[in-house]
């Protein structure tokens, strides 16, 4: 159970996330939607503590995540894996090492610094890669993979952390529709098969409706809607955003596109 209580983050004058409270039972797949600048990324990054909250609390199974420091914080990060729009792999390292990065917090510092992973760890990584049909690419450099493949490597890395929660920040915004489907299917698979809680930021309402058990809509840092896909009707969208769905998509996509384009 992940409990978010009045979570707020300010950047100077601007309040990116404003008094957000949510309670997410284990094993749920939650889609967070909203226009560009709504605060979706900031919310997710605070859950992993990559961004520090200004106020409010995060509780996971009763443990106060916001108070964690040092090793305890790194342990929490290991338990709530993060997936990014730009994949954030180490481009110049091979795929296998990228996946093994997910084990770093589980092993002794010196042998990690020397890059000495055990055969058992490599086997675990190869199995994770094989699950997403990437075992053959294990020794290729990450920057030689397509966007969809890179995102699946990122998911394999996340699984290596043996997490309880997966946070995915616009995981398919840089992908073409076919790759987007493969990646969303992979996320659904880890949600259904491994029982992980998945929080995914999306800018496409249809994707959210298709894959998620629950949808949270944000606007200017606040939660404007929280319910099942069936409850998020076209009227509801117009009510929250003041535009119809087609226009909403256009605006959301416009916001995501120019940031980065990923080749092939």
């Amino acid at each position: 159970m992940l409990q978010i209580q009045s979570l707020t983050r300010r950047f100077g004058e601007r309040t990116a996330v404003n008094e957000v409270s949510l309670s997410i039972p284990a094993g749920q797949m939650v889609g967070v939607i909203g226009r560009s600048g709504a605060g979706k990324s900031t919310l997710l990054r605070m859950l992993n503590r990559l961004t520090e909250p200004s106020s409010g609390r995060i509780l996971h199974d009763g443990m106060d995540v916001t108070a964690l420091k040092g090793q305890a914080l790194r342990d929490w990060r290991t338990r709530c894996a993060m997936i990014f729009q730009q994949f954030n792999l180490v481009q110049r390292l091979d795929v296998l090492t990228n996946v093994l990065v997910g084990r770093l917090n589980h092993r002794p510092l010196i042998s990690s610094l020397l890059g000495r992973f055990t055969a058992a760890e490599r086997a675990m990584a190869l199995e994770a890669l094989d699950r997403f049909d990437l075992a053959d690419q294990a020794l290729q450099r990450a920057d030689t993979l397509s966007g969809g493949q890179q995102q699946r490597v990122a998911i394999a890395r996340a699984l290596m952390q043996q997490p309880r929660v997966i946070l995915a920040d616009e995981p398919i915004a840089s992908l073409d529709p076919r790759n987007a489907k493969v990646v969303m299917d992979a996320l659904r698979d880890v949600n259904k098969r491994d029982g992980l809680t998945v929080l995914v930021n999306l800018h496409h309402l249809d994707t959210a409706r298709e894959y998620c058990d629950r949808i949270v809509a944000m606007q200017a840092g606040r939660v404007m809607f929280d319910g099942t896909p069936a409850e998020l009707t076209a009227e509801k969208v117009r009510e929250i955003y003041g535009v119809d769905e087609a226009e909403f998509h256009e605006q959301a996509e416009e916001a995501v596109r120019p940031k980065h384009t990923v080749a092939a």
Partner: protein
Amino acid sequence: MSAAFHTDISPVVATGEAAFQAARQQRRLATLVAIAVLVPCLLLAGWVSEAWPSTIWAGLPRIGEYFWRILPSLSLDHLFGGTKTEGSLAFWFYRAPEWLWLLFETANMAALATLMGSAVSLVLAFPAARNLSPSPLIYQLTRRGLEALRTVPEIVYALIFVWAFGVGALAGILAIALHTAGANGKLFAEAIENTDLGAWDGVRSAGGSWALACRYAILPQVLPNLISYFLLRFEVNIRSASVVGFVGAGGIGAELYQVISFNYYEEISAIILLIILAVASIDLLSERLRHAIIGRLGGPA
């Protein structure tokens, strides 16, 4: 110019153009002020350091004269004669075996010092990179520390170490290594500051500690750059290593200092020629090496 515009220019263009003109005016003023400050400063600096044009003019011929003197007297007839024949190449380089050994020692000193110094830089560069530093205080401390290391010239370190450890290569190696740590530390840190932090977020979000994120997210990205700087510094250090010997810190410098102070003109030119040849061949070699390594790592050349 404004007369050339049509009368119906849009307000956006009008305000934009006005802002542009104002900015240009300001830039011009800034340039003028800079010149007005710089020129007197230059003149003052010249006056204080007694760099009179007349002194420079009077000294110029003497430089030529010195070069004339250190030229060897070679004669075409005996060019390939033995070490005892005056006018032969062998006579000019009669102590070549000794000098070559000293040159080898010099190159060794440079290599060791570059390795040691760069190892220190590598450790200090991460906290000295503004985007990664654990805290502003640590950033300032490492940055200022590196600055201090590289501000002191090698020759000064060499003097201190010769006093502490005695005459010999050890003093020279430590002196050059310290300076290298400071110089490369700054370059390494700046290379790190230019990296993309996506991979950093990736490793941190997976629970990797600060040190591990440096090792896995940053190091692979900057390694080709660091190797470039390392080899460049090796070349620079060959030059430094041939000078620290002036104060007894090993290498060919001691020999060079001696022949200069005893006015053994022909030997001066022989040694300098050897140093130039050595530096040139190491330049070529390291250029090759750099391309080979970086080509293998698949980075920018």
